[in-house]
């Protein structure tokens, strides 16, 4: 027979697994993009579809878990999640992958909301259950990109989903029948301030997860593994800072301090003074510390003293993932516009460097033509490899020293442009995190 501790861990695994799924594919997106030969806007739906459906399905799933036996809802949902994960792993077209991601989200919504109904009987109190549920979800969301990156680098993007299927089935161990939930009073109003703040913080978190990974891999050329290692700073910092942040005098202070830390980290990401992963470590640590405090405190507040836990948990999931979708839509649009602007700026600066170089005119023109070809061949958002254009001119007898100097200068300008393209999006995300302080402060009486 499974012990209560093992069942709690299994339910925590289910929650962490589902909420990690909202971000786990981020590091795999460049590989998925190459595999299916689609544009960035299409491949972004692999991420958006999951979060959108999760936001929409969370409340119906919570009501279902309340009306039907929660163990049944959790069990069936985990099986649906596992089956959809297997379909994702085997998908041969982007349409199938996106559709399977939507079904994963439906299963995920049922599992997460029903888990919140099951956890109190394992942990003995609703408060402990809510803390455990929020911690598992927060850790899953923060660790998702790192785990996805490691699997993508070591095996393939398909491995992310292949691993999820058995893990979801393993989480079934936490499901113990306990009969239908007692028909309590109708669910009260959701905690608007806490849910609004959760939505804003989640929109900001999207930037930390999605844009940092894009910057590390596509702009700075890191491997998925190196990028995973870099973003793992965030969950590590979240775990390390949690005991300190829990010492805050009240949840409102904890949530507000966390949102301020997140805003600071995001603003620093918008101001990185160089194109090195090291510059992201301190901002990610700050975001991780803030994330731990904010998500835990706000989720706790949204659930505290409210009946039923599943329905109000459903509200928090809906608010968080609606925030993620909003963040994806707004920040990706801002980033895409800035990227296009910065690409044009980098082309002009590169052309100026070539035209004003000490190369012979013949080599200037040949190099310019080769660089334009490389730029034309590059992926929409990935920094093109310019080295072959310079190698071609070295072979053609161009001044090697001048070509070396020019290559270094042009690559530096390209990195600057690619990095600068992220700045406004990070600053917008910082503003969203800071905006979350408003509902936290306004909800002072309730928080």
């Amino acid at each position: 027979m499974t012990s209560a501790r093992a069942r709690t861990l299994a339910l925590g695994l289910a929650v962490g697994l589902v909420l990690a799924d909202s971000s786990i594919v981020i590091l795999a997106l460049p590989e998925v993009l190459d595999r299916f030969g689609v544009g960035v806007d299409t491949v972004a739906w692999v991420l958006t579809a999951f979060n959108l459906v999760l936001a929409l399905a969370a409340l119906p799933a919570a009501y279902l878990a309340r009306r039907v036996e929660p163990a049944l809802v959790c069990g069936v949902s985990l099986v649906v999640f596992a089956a959809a994960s297997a379909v994702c792993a085997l998908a041969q077209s982007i349409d199938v992958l996106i559709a399977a991601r939507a079904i994963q989200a439906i299963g995920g919504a049922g599992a997460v909301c029903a888990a919140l109904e099951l956890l109190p009987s394992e942990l003995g109190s609703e408060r402990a259950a809510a803390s455990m549920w929020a911690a598992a979800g927060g850790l899953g969301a923060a660790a998702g990109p790192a785990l996805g990156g490691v699997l993508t680098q070591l095996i393939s993007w398909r491995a992310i989903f292949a691993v999820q299927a058995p893990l979801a089935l393993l989480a079934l161990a936490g499901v113990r029948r306990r009969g239908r939930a007692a028909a309590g009073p109708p669910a009260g109003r959701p905690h608007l301030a806490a849910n609004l703040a959760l939505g804003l913080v989640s929109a900001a978190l999207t930037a930390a997860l999605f844009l940092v990974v894009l910057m590390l891999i596509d702009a700075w050329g890191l491997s998925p593994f190196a990028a995973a290692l870099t973003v793992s700073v965030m969950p590590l910092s979240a775990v390390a800072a949690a005991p300190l942040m829990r010492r805050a005098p009240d949840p409102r202070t904890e949530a507000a301090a966390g949102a301020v830390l997140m805003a600071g980290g995001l603003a620093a990401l918008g101001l990185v003074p160089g194109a090195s992963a090291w510059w992201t470590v301190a901002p990610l640590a700050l975001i991780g510390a803030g994330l731990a405090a904010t998500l835990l405190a706000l989720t706790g507040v949204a659930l505290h003293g409210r009946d039923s836990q599943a329905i109000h948990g459903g509200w928090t999931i809906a608010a968080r993932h609606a925030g993620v979708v909003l963040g994806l839509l707004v920040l990706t649009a801002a980033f895409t516009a800035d990227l296009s602007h910065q690409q044009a700026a980098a082309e002009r600066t590169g052309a100026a460097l070539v035209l004003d170089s000490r190369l012979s005119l013949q080599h200037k023109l040949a190099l310019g033509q080769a660089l334009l070809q490389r730029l034309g061949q590059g992926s929409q958002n990935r920094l093109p490899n310019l080295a072959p254009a310079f190698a071609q001119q070295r072979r053609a007898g161009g001044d090697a020293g001048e070509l070396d100097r020019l290559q270094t200068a042009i690559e530096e300008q390209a990195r600057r442009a690619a990095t600068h393209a992220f700045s406004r999006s990070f600053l917008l995300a910082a503003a969203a995190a800071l905006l979350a302080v408003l509902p936290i402060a306004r909800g002072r009486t309730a928080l």
Partner: protein
Amino acid sequence: MSIPARWLVSAAAAAMLLGCAYLALGGLSYAPAAAPNPCTPRPWPRSLGTQGTLEQIGLDAIGAMACRLHAPREELVLAIAQPGGLHRFALAHHLSDRLLQNTARAGLLEAIARADRAGRINGLEAFLLRAAAENVPIERLVQLARSALGG
């Protein structure tokens, strides 16, 4: 100061410290360098053959044209080098074909005069080039420039 206020001030201080440190290290200026002013004449390379001199006059002409149009020289070079680029350039800068042609001719004449003043071409060469610039259809000159730029 109350305990909650102390927490908030500490969090804000940590956030500000990191932001200020990155600003001090040049975070705000980590962006591509601005393209040079097209109205600032570039020094001529020390020695050029006849072909090189003609190409340099072409590049100078593009610089002079960009200066008159208040557009970056490099944007104009890229526009000439890419098929359809000049049309897109004209649309982006709200320029008519006639204005573009007149400016191209004026830029070319300015570059020839500069080469003459710098002693890179003699009086006869300057006269012949000026005659060509004034009489050859500008579309033909753009085609020549495009083929020289590899477009």
